[in-house]
């Protein structure tokens, strides 16, 4: 079947507000992008993007209400590339401690945990949520076939979050960042699955370059 109407990237909408920035960011690098919310659109997608903002459990609940969790899991297990952004990255993991323990999509083993509270950490200016630009610390000797291809060694990206994932397998952590003396997973990569705790669509030219790289590697 000729599927010329299938865009390069299909952005999954589960009732969150700011999908426009993600959509436009892909279009600005010359890719076709479409916001989808039906299970059949997930099934026919070439490449999935799972954005996110808000609380973990309500996001999972919304995905379930739209009958999207199983199609996403199946599709990713079948090898379709997926990029999770911010909360969307956290949803890829097994579970999260946000507002009680809640199960995620379970595509990457690990748990989403909170930053230490400012009371526990005596650093001037330490505040939660972490809002701002932090430098990525590359964890691999080779960046080939990852988001980090073609980037300068010093990359700063934009974060807004109070929680971050702790991967069971350190080998899945492609890059970390530090905040308030805590080093956390900033990019996870496991086969066809990639997730960024930061917002590439809001990280200036560095972020756009990562999206370009992701598409070049994954949307053929």
């Amino acid at each position, binding site marked *: 079947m000729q599927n010329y109407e299938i865009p390069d990237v299909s952005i999954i909408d589960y009732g969150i507000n700011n999908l*426009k920035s993600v959509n436009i960011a892909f279009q600005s690098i010359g890719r076709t992008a479409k916001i989808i919310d039906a299970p059949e659109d997930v099934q026919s997608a070439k490449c999935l993007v799972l954005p996110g*903002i808000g609380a973990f459990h309500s996001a999972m609940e919304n995905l379930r209400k739209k009958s999207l969790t199983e199609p996403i899991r199946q599709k990713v297990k079948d090898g379709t590339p997926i990029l999770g952004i911010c909360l969307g990255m956290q949803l890829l993991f097994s579970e999260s401690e946000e507002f009680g323990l809640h199960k995620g999509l379970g595509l990457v083993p690990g748990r989403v945990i909170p930053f230490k509270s400012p009371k526990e950490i005596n650093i001037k200016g*330490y505040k939660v949520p972490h809002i*701002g630009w932090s430098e990525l610390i590359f964890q691999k000797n080779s960046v080939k076939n990852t988001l980090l291809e073609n980037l*300068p060694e010093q990359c700063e990206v934009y974060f807004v979050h109070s929680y971050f994932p702790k991967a069971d397998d350190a080998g899945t952590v492609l890059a970390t960042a530090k905040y308030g003396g805590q080093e956390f997973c900033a990019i996870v990569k496991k086969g066809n699955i990639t997730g960024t705790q930061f917002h590439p669509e*809001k990280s200036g030219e560095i972020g756009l370059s990562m999206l370009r790289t992701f598409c070049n590697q994954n949307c053929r």
Partner: protein
Amino acid sequence: MEKIRIIARLDVKGPNVIKGVNLEALRVVGKPEKMAEDYYRQGADELIYIDIVASLYGRQNLLNIVNLTSDKIFIPFTVGGGVRTLDDISLFLKAGADKVAINTAITKNPDLITKASRMFGSQCIVASIEAKKAPENKWEAYTENGREKTGLDVVKWAKKVEKLGAGEILLTSIDKEGTKKGFDIELIKQVSEAVSVPLIVCGGAGNAGHIVECIESGNIDAVAVSSILHYGTSTIGEIKNHLAKSGISVRKNAKL
């Protein structure tokens, strides 16, 4: 120390970016979407749009600007001016804004902060406070660009908006705004000691030295500048170089 964010602030009136002194004596300095793109290229960490007469022109004006901007600007941006209801917030976020700044509506209805941060997440709710010096080392919160008094004490009000769920505070000194004579350091000290949410300070930057002085005076997270950029005194890059030389950590503008 975490990286200090340098934010370009654009006050808009109708289709133009304007700039005044003490939020008065306004003059046109350019077109919002063009200036925004320019500051983005210079390496601004964020942008703030405030429609200073949203009540006169209606929200559609600002929505148009947000729509045009979000096509070209890939850094976070905040929109304020005329945000009164949860529906307004939703409209701006859908148009591509990352955060909304609210002043008048929350002084009249503080509960809006709580409702909005529950619905959209506190990270996108910025409480905007316009501060004007009052007797005895105190400041009074104003609205409508320094035209309307609220009777609220700025330091107490800042604590309250944090408690109600604001994710960030944008603190503008009406006395210093547009003067290019430096920040209200005492105001910044008092507010930064009173709150623990991220604090953006605004009003008075005439040169990069003023910004250094301001950052060293209190526990702040971001500085919003306008005159210094609009009139070409310094670019964002020049400001950041000066800050870095003074030992302040800032994001470098990536050249790819």
